[in-house]
């Protein structure tokens, strides 16, 4: 099988405490993998380790992305290489206009990849086109990044960034948290519009509900820092009925 990302025996700790205790995952281009699991099982740690957050220390194992050693790259290099993390809690950054941020991010990635920067008119057209699809209003784009945005607006803004940056590998970290059913539909549609045979996704969620909208190819159950079970999309439905009790943690 052709692999986009291969995670082997990945161990990681935060503040001296081991959270990931040997994760193995192989994700092929175009596949959507869901990671489910109880609170504290290591779901968010996995997404942060893949995105390159400083205070997460990898102690053992490897992650190869498009044949490169992902763990050696800085967060911005990973982003330029095609990794995108949709944050569980997108940051509010006062004083930084959303448009300035988007343009800086797009052009920084293009520059790192050795491509020409987008001109302002081309950038504006691109943003207008994508934001219309996600129902992101002009008024939101004029505000400082995420400042005064509702939970749903912040998540839509995340998916807008994903659409603009066109990553090869998307990590959705509990994107459903804090969303009502209408916002969940809009966000899921935005994500589904980005599915194609080259782009892979890792969808991290506590609840099965999100997977009704973003239907995965594979489901993995994470417990106590390890993948304890893998299966098809039906595994999510089974978990919805039985809960996480048998995986040794708090019930969902």
């Amino acid at each position, binding site marked *: 099988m052709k692999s986009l990302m291969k995670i082997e025996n990945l161990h990681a700790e935060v503040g001296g405490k081991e959270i990931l205790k040997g994760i193995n995952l192989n994700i092929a281009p175009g596949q959507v993998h869901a990671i489910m699991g109880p609170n504290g099982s290591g779901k968010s740690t996995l997404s942060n380790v893949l*995105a*390159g*957050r*400083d205070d997460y220390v990898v102690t053992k194992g490897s992650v190869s992305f498009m044949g490169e050693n992902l763990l050696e790259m*800085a*967060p*911005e290099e*990973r*982003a*330029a290489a095609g990794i995108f*993390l949709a*944050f569980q809690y*997108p*940051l509010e*950054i*006062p*004083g*930084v206009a959303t448009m*300035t*941020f988007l343009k*800086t*991010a*797009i052009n*920084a*990635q293009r520059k*790192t990849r050795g491509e020409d920067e987008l001109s302002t008119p081309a950038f504006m057209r691109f943003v207008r086109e994508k934001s219309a699809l996600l129902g992101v209003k002009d008024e939101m784009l004029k505000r*400082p990044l995420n400042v005064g945005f509702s939970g749903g607006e912040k998540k839509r803004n995340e998916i807008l*960034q994903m659409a603009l*940056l066109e990553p090869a590998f998307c990590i959705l970290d509990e994107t459903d948290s804090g969303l009502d059913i209408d916002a969940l539909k809009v966000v899921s549609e935005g994500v589904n519009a980005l599915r194609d045979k080259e782009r892979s996704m890792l969808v991290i969620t506590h609840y099965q509900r999100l997977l009704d909208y973003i239907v995965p190819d594979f489901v993995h159950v994470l417990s106590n820092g390890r993948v304890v079970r893998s299966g098809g999309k039906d595994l999510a439905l089974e978990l919805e009925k039985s809960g996480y009790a048998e995986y040794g943690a708090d019930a969902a």
Partner: protein
Amino acid sequence: MTHLTTQGNIKKTAAEKAFPALYDKIAPGLPGGKAVRRLRNKAMEDFKASGLPGRGVEAWKYTNLRQLLTDSYPPAVPAGGGVLMNTDEAASHGAFSTLERATMVFVDGHYRPELSDISAIGDKARIMTLAQALETEDTRALDTLVSAADADPLINLTLAMMRDGAMVSIPDGVRIKTPLHFVHINRTGASCANTTRHIVHVGKGAALKIFQTHAGSENATYFTNTLFIAQIGNEGQLTRVKVQGDSLSAFHFGHLRAELGEKAKLRDFTLNLGGHVVRSEVDVALAGNAADAHVSGAYLLSGKQHCDTSIMMDHQRPGGTSQQQFRGVVDDGAQGIFQGKVRVAPDAQKSDGRQMVRALLLSERASHFAKPELEIFADDVQCAHGATAGELDDEALFFLRARGIPEPRAKALLITGFIGEALDDITDLDIRDRLEELTQNWLDRRSGETS
């Protein structure tokens, strides 16, 4: 701010002895006739009595000049016609050289007409130099020259030693669109002092915008002391945008004293980038009903810079509103200081005074002191103050990097955004762009040094 003479028995420092000695030597050559000379002598006597502000002087609590100022500096000698310098070169030192404006250029404290151009506003305003005003004993100039032993010692020094400055008067009802730029340049590069006094009068319902920039030869040690006196008539408006980019070895003392009439407005912004020891002071008297003053600024410090911003808002009459909005970015072993005082007189009811200072510390050795003071003698007022100091937000930094923005650029974005909060009052986008560009240049220079 009041300076109490408590130093009668304290031994004079070298600088305290040197200034009067220097004054005796240079006084005969300073502009002005006998009346001016008497005022100068009095100011120097007052300075001798008070000495430099040291420990125990509350208004100078964090800037002990008895310790920091070890020497006096001889006044700069006029560069004369021998030094080649054209308007473009002079303007290039200023931050606003690309904007339409009138200019008054002061090189080493001396007005240089051949480098200046006031034609854009010259026919609408009365403009002369302080040296001219002193020579003719212009009463408007003399009225502002009263010293007092309890006045700030640095103000007494400007009075005794002043050489030149701008005297600008905007007639009632005249609103001048073209900004007037006071360009201050230190050219000699040697150890020298320049003492400048600007006197600006904005008539009733009149309006004026001023740029004030300071620049100097890199690494030159000099002493610059500027007092800016502004009188704003009823419903008049004065806007000042000051950019201080003196040499990193220079002593910079800059003081704005503004008096506002009824419904008069002041909008003041200062960006402090340069100087080794800097005191940036703004005293506002809201002397008419419903006067309105916004005083804001930012300071970007590195190395061993010491920058003290001290603001006094004196609500003397009812219905006045004031705002102080400051942001400091402090790197290396630099020290930022903010003192902000709001005083509300007994009959200044319905006053509204607000103050906020936030500091960003970029290094473990960096420090910032904030001293807010409220002195309220009226009972129906609204006053608020806040002060914070912190580091760059790691979460925000990671967020930006995870979107592909390299670390230095991500930091720059966050710092620019932080400073931007103090720029809210600057509605002219051209000016705002220039200030953001200066911030960006500072950041680029910093990241160049550390990478």
